[in-house]
């Protein structure tokens, strides 16, 4: 038996025409939202309403809508990916809200993530950090070695895999009071530093990635722990500590 019901909600949503336009919070009323729908389906419903009223629909990022691509990115009622833990915005359901609620929807706020339009931000800063070191150099010209030929301790493989679960959504930056990207960079550094294949370039990797992170204008971690709580993939603060160790080691040798 379905327990879904329909609710009426008020929305306060950030609207901004373009990168250089001045934006503002706009108020919308949306009736008959099924609590069985997802948050993004609710926004789809609002956009249909706006289109019917011949108004500009709200731009927001999304792709897979199943929590794996890292594209969706909304700051909902004061929390990155909304009022639930361990989920992306696309996995947030309207059953988390009550009839008559007012819901604030804002883009990620960070100097390094400028708003492109409405709720869409430019996260290419993350791409540039990845390009600075988030890879291993492997010769693929016909003589690749089977990955399993290099033995990896199970505990290390597990930790590396947990770090690799980061989908680059940027919720850590969005929720951090310092706008720090250290959870993301910590995860990317750890993912390779833990594996024998990644150890070869470990020192240069961490130096380059941290330098790029600083250049992009992200803030400095003060260990509040907010990122770990809001990260949809449960990336642990241990990864930031590992990055700090790796960087110290790389700096002193």
């Amino acid at each position, binding site marked *: 038996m379905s327990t879904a019901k329909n609710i009426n909600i008020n929305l306060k949503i950030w609207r901004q025409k373009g990168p250089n336009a001045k934006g503002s919070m706009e108020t919308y009323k949306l009736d008959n939202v099924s609590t069985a729908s997802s948050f993004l389906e609710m926004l789809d419903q609002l956009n249909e309403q706006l289109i019917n009223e011949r108004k500009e629909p709200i731009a927001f990022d999304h792709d897979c809508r199943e929590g794996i691509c890292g594209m969706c990115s909304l*700051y909902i009622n004061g929390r990155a990916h909304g009022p639930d833990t361990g989920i992306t915005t696309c996995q947030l359901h309207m059953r988390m809200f009550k009839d008559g609620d007012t819901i604030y929807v804002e883009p990620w*706020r960070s100097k390094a993530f400028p708003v492109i339009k409405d709720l869409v931000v430019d996260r290419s800063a993350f791409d540039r950090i990845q390009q600075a070191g988030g890879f291993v150099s492997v010769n693929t010209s016909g003589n690749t070695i089977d990955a399993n030929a290099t033995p990896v301790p199970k505990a290390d493989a597990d930790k590396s895999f947990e770090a690799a679960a980061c989908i680059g959504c940027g919720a850590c930056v969005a929720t951090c009071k*310092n*706008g720090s990207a250290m959870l993301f960079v910590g995860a990317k550094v750890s993912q390779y530093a833990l594996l024998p294949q990644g150890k070869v370039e470990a020192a240069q990797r961490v130096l380059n990635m941290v330098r790029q992170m600083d250049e992009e204008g992200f803030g400095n971690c*003060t*260990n509040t722990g907010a990122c770990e*709580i809001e990260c949809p993939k449960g990336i642990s603060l*241990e990864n930031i500590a590992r990055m700090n160790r790796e960087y110290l080691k790389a*700096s002193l040798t």
Partner: protein
Amino acid sequence: MAKSAFLKSSLAKKYWMALTGLFLCLFLMGHLAGNLQLLVPNNALNFNKYALFMTTNPAVKILSYLTYISIIFHAIDGIMLTIQNKAARPVGYAKSNPSANSPWASRNMAVLGTIILVFIVTHMVQFWSRMHFDQNMPLQTIAINMQGMPQEFYVTTDGGYLPKMQVDQKMIIIKDRTDFYDAAANVKIKEGYKDLYKITVAFFQDAKYGLIYTLLYVVAMIVMGFHLLHGFSSAFQSLGLNHSKYTPAIKTLGKGFAILVSLLFAVIPVYIHFFLKA
């Protein structure tokens, strides 16, 4: 070293923050051990002897310079980090709910630190600068009964006593704040103890402001307690020390340290103001 920008990079700043912060925690333990002597009854002389040791011993001198440098570096670095962190989010959120994911102290380290800085400066003006520079710093005296008549004597660093009368009558004069000179021969005969104990007690028992000073001191210690509640364990994370084996122990230790140290510091002026008989 050069390739990592060891002073400038975000992580390097964090290492310095953590190292100076932890060094200041060590300093707090030393300072507290000294202050706690104020709670021992009839301990003025021992306290002043300790104060003399702390201002003259060469090893302690090195430590104290390290402490000054740490405070300055920690404060400048902390303020620089905070300015950068503010700049990293030029447009804020219309609605945010930070208490859902992080403890209050961790989000207010800069405010707490700035209050501590103001406290340290006023504290140094009140006590440290008087100890080091005040020309009218009182010297330790003691009342001894001579044939039923109480008489004041200066206590001297060689364990002896000088009748205060002789100074009052200008037979002995005091030079350089602590040196007793024979007035006639103009030669140094003995040295006295600066009476830091007396100054401290007078400060917190001041008829007009003693209560305010005591309360402000307690407030400063509460602020420091919150700074350390987050800071102590945070420093280990900054230095890359995080492991499920020992991190829970560090967190517990940090909370205990923060509460115990601030509480013990705060007890002292409260005792002097409310309970110590002048």
